[in-house]
């Protein structure tokens, strides 16, 4: 497929430029790794004080966190739209993008990707494996299939929400600070949802469905039947939100006003 081949070309170019700055590349790896380690330490500290988090034991919480890292890392490797407003709207790079025969969102994803974040997938599998190892669960082949399917679904949920948020810049030329706020909310998805207030549970399921990125699929993989249908809905929620994201984006491109002249 043309899009995938093009992705590959951009990826090769990206690696070429990254490898030109060797130390920077290595540092990026290390900071990514450290960032995830700090989060893990936080979980361990919490369980240093209590052995039980609303019915969830330490290894279950660790496994959920490990699972969450998988879609999250894939997402952060390909949706680096943080400085979209600055770089593409204010500096006018979007004009260039729009004169090329490839969908504009796809081009921007390809131009801003940071594949080194994918190291988090590896970390996630390790952390999750460590949790599951202590939990006495039997994993079938089907579970591995669902792991992959749910991860893809989770990436789509994240990608969809961020595309909607990024599209805001296309509708208004004033700067919005909503992204960091949402980003904070997004990390809520990596803990068991029933530890939160009811209101937050609803929000994380129906409004900003970050629970579908971490908790719901992970609970299925930990053999909790309570959220079975939520877990199964993950790919669907992903498709719906990505669809919304692309729709918002396309509408935004129609209203794009161009960089200042």
């Amino acid at each position, binding site marked *: 497929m043309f899009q995938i*081949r*093009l992705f590959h*070309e951009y990826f090769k*170019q990206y690696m070429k430029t990254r490898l030109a700055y060797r130390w920077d590349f290595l540092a990026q790896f290390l900071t990514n790794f450290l960032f995830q380690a700090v989060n893990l330490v936080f979980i361990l500290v919490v369980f240093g004080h209590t052995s039980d988090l609303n019915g969830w034991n330490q290894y279950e919480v660790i496994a959920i966190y490990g699972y969450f890292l998988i879609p999250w890392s894939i997402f952060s490797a390909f949706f680096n739209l943080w400085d979209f407003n600055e770089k593409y709207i204010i500096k006018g790079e979007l004009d260039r993008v*729009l*004169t090329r025969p490839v969908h504009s969102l796809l081009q921007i994803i390809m*131009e801003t990707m940071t594949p080194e974040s994918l190291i988090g997938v590896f970390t996630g599998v390790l952390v999750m494996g460590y949790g599951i190892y202590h939990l006495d669960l039997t994993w079938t082949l089907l579970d591995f299939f669902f792991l992959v399917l749910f991860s893809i679904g989770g990436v789509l949920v994240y990608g969809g929400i961020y595309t909607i948020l990024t599209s805001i810049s296309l509708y208004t030329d004033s700067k919005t600070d909503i992204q960091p706020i949402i980003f904070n909310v997004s990390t809520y998805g990596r803990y068991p949802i029933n530890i939160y207030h009811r209101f937050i549970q609803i929000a994380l399921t129906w409004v900003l469905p970050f629970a579908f990125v971490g908790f719901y699929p992970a609970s299925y993989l930990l053999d909790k039947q309570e959220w079975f249908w939520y877990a199964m809905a993950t790919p669907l929620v992903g498709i719906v939100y990505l669809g919304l994201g692309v729709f918002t984006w396309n509408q935004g491109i*129609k209203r794009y006003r*161009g960089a200042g002249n």
Partner: protein
Amino acid sequence: MLSIKAESLTKEFKVFQSRPGLKGAFRDLFNRQYRVIRAVDAIDLSVNQGEMVGYIGENGAGKSTTIKMLTGILQPTSGQLLVNGYDPHGQREQFVRTIGVVFGQRSQLWWDIAVQESFRLLQKVYRIPEQDFKPYLDRMIEVLNISPLLDQPVRKLSLGQRMRCELAAALIHQPALLFLDEPTIGLDVLVKENIRQFLKEINKEFGTTILLTTHDLADIEALCSRVVMLDKGKIIYDGGLQRLRNEWGDGKKIHIETVDTYTLSQLQAQTEGMKVHWIEEGPMRFTAILENGNAKVPEVISRIVEHVAVQEIQIEEASTEEIVRKIYQEGLVHA
């Protein structure tokens, strides 16, 4: 065939108007005031395949907005627009394969990667088969003389070097229509000349339609047979450069230095019956001002040299730059 066909093409922008002062800012929070600006106001424009058209106007006249509509970046507010047979914004992805774009103030290439890598990536983006790509690109590289630059990242190039690479990049997919927005801005004379020469060749060889905006009217004089002038979102002139000169330029002047002394009336007698106004600039120095379109330079000169011993002759013509400045200052009253 028409490259560009625009009918009453219009673009409006809604601009937020802030009230003055802190109190005003507070009121803006609840009740915003907008003003509608017509950046491009119902313009009609037809450009034939193979034409080279200069698109000029002051800052804010609507040039960039027009270009952005023609290239599919912006959606027109109203009006009909067909470029290379496509609706530029609606059919963007198919349409942009048929155009090349160079924005002088903004790079079209990837900043961090070597020029040849940019070219390779563009080859993939435009899906150009290798057997078409290689010979054509080699030709560009040769004509634009950029082979020593190919392995440099774009950010290390000088402006002139970058611009030559930009041109190659914009033409890589052999577009039928090329948009150039200020292609020679900030370049030195020699590079400007090279680029103009190159554009002429491209136009001649491939029949590429070229639409260029520029502040440097020398670009237009060198390249374009047709000028479209824009003011406050409207086209105020569309036609040949020569006609622009004839209609707007003051008459040509002929400065004459004579060998002997003559009186003003002696000279006037020579051009009897022609619409020529004589001025005595000093001893043995005269100037003939020819009324526009009614007196021909060769005829005036031949009449003079027949009876007057002439030391030196100089012909002066208003530059395009002066003419354009005059139009902006005086507005349309002249026409």
